């Protein structure tokens, strides 16, 4: 072969291999579907979800059969979602957190207004929607009003508290009331009394994340607001903001809670709670789904109302994880059929029965588990908490992750004692307002 021939062959091999099908490029399926994902004339719906939250592979196959659709499940990934939206081929249904995502998605014009679909639906009837679904509404200025851009799959009132009666008894601390919310000062005092440090036993008195969503609720509870009226800026320097930050810094500095400066090596609350090393965990009703997996924990775990910071009893939800449909979706009617099935059909009933969250449909509420003592107690406490739910509006100009990134960047210095509360508030304002200003430029 000549030199020229060698170079020509190089190009030829590449072209032949690409065009001629030297190798089968079909992806291998892990399910029993041998068609390699090409199931004839069946309409296809792509859902971007997390783990197995819509069901195990067998449940997805059952859904395909029930719906007569080919369902493709993609792992939720913001980069992939961005790429798909940019390529003009978004998934048909996408996971999201209504409480913090809905205004952003609506303002950026990527989410489909679902009012017409809800109006016609015999499965997801508007009258049956739990008030939590209002976090998925946005009228261009206010969250909680206007068209519906999505619906929760389930939810919790996230500032409620699970506690370990065994640790309360050991420390001689009175259990929280089932009916009267603790004040934040009481939470601090109990947490301090329950905290144990030392070589033999390390117990956190409380877990409290100290993130944007928490401060939003604490400030609202005092009758204040974190965001300005047009949601283009935050003000942590307000008296309400300073009071919330001061309380949290006192808690974190005392080592009562894991924090960004002193994180829990387990990464989240359940393993520590299960190991009898966390007396109070600030987690909503969904945490009961974890308690159900461990009989020992079920004996001592009990549920308490969300504590009250100011004069207003506010028990919000900072997630309301659910699903929305991209406006650019190609197959909306089929997607809606799948939407109805997963959010109002058999999978929704199974989720309600598991106790891993409160159902987003009122009609499913009686399915919540009430067999074990802790389940009965949690159910009763939860029923009394519901009237105190309210939508706390979030900004349409930035994602929660971006705001929390600023909090996580600034907070460690304050917890370690190098930064005064006033300066912390200034740095939070400066960092977050920069994000919001950049975000506002992108919204028409």
């Amino acid at each position, binding site marked *: *072969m*000549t*030199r020229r*021939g*060698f*170079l020509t062959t*190089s190009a030829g*091999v*590449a072209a032949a*291999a*690409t065009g001629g099908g030297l*190798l*089968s*490029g*079909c*992806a*291998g*399926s*892990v*399910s029993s579907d041998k068609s390699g*994902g090409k199931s004839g004339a069946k309409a296809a719906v*792509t859902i971007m*979800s*997390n*783990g*197995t*939250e819509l*069901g*195990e*592979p067998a449940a997805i196959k059952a859904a395909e059969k029930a719906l007569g659709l080919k369902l*493709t*499940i*993609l*792992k939720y*990934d913001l*980069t*992939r979602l961005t*790429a*798909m939206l*940019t*390529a003009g*081929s978004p998934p048909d249904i996408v996971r999201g957190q209504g409480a913090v995502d809905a205004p952003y998605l609506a303002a950026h014009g990527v989410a489909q207004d679902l009012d017409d679909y809800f109006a016609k639906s015999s499965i997801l009837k508007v009258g049956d929607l739990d008030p939590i679904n209002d976090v998925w509404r946005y009228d261009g200025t206010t969250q909680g009003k206007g068209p519906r851009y999505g619906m929760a799959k389930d939810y919790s009132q996230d500032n409620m508290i699970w506690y370990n009666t065994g640790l309360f008894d050991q420390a001689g601390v009175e259990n929280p009331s089932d009916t009267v919310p603790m004040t934040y000062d009481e939470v601090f005092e109990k947490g301090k009394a329950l905290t144990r440090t030392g070589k*033999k*036993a390390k117990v956190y008195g409380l877990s409290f994340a100290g993130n944007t969503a928490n401060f939003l609720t604490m400030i609202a509870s005092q009758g204040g607001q974190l965001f300005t009226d047009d949601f283009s800026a935050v003000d942590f320097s307000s008296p309400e903001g300073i009071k919330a930050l001061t309380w949290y810094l006192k808690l974190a500095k005392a080592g009562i809670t894991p924090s960004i400066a002193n994180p829990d090596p*387990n990464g*989240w609350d359940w*393993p*520590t709670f*299960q*190991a009898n*090393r966390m007396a109070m965990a600030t987690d909503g009703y*969904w*945490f009961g*789904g*974890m308690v*159900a997996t*461990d009989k020992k924990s079920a004996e001592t775990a009990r549920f308490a109302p969300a504590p009250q910071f100011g004069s207003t009893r506010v028990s919000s939800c900072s997630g309301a994880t659910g699903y929305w449909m991209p406006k650019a979706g190609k197959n909306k009617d089929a997607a809606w059929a799948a939407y109805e099935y997963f959010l109002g059909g058999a999978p929704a009933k199974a989720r309600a029965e*598991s106790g*891993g*969250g409160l159902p987003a449909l009122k009609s499913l509420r009686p399915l919540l588990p009430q067999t074990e003592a802790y389940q009965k107690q949690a159910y009763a406490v939860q029923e009394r908490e519901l009237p105190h739910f309210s939508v706390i509006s979030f900004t349409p100009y930035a994602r929660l992750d971006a705001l929390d990134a600023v909090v996580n960047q600034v907070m460690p210095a304050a917890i370690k004692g190098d930064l005064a509360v006033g300066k912390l508030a200034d740095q939070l304002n400066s960092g977050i307002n920069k994000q919001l200003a950049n975000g506002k430029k992108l919204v028409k």
Partner: protein
Amino acid sequence: MILARRTSMYMILIALATLFISPFGWLVITALKNTSELAAYPLHWTPDKWQWSNFSRALTQIPYLAYARNSLTIAVIYSVLVTLSSAWAGFGFARLRARGKGFLFGVLLSTMMMPAMITLIPTYIIFAKTGMVDTYWPWVLWGLSGAPYLIFLFRQFFANMPRELEEAAIIDGCGYGRIFWRIFLPQSWPVLATSLVLSFTWTWGDYIAPSLLLSADHTTLAVAVATEYVTPSTGAPINNLLAAGAVMYIIPVLLLFLVLQKGFVTGSSTSGLK
């Protein structure tokens, strides 16, 4: 004196080896604990009861072997193709004369400096527009296009081979294709082994590309192990099964390295990188 010096040297080496292997050791111990022991304090250095069943549960909790098959398919396709195409390109850069060759080689090397994240979204768009999302074609194309580092490795190795070898072959009537296949490629087994190990490991361990391009049903073990050991009701991670899955996930790469390690070491040390 020499004995003391050698002993202290070994002590340091053992300490360093222990330090570097400890994360893997901790992973294995985590894989053998039950869930309540994971967060125990004081720390349990060894499990109270060794939970060997965690490994069988890790295999059945998710379709582990099916994901492993997907990973293996992609890794084999990519590593074989990229090794051959990189050897081919490396041979061209090392042994052929062409105008602008030096410049092209410089451009090729400069692409190694570009973070992969920058090209992620454009790459997705190209594959989406050409209907290759949720297929293994991207790995075929990436394999055929060669990898800059491997081309560099082959080029350095081939450049060090004596010119007389090539000249003798030409006198005997060999073209460049046969020179490459019959003479240079068989001589380059240490670099071939290095290339196979490296490219297999890259693909086996890659999380980003499969999570971007493949659906949950077609994805690889790297993505499945990281995301699917969760409780169905709450989506919370099951850490001991995740650790067991991760331990088993490492095994194929370890085996490949053990089989090819002689070539890997020789390849790295004889390809002009000294």
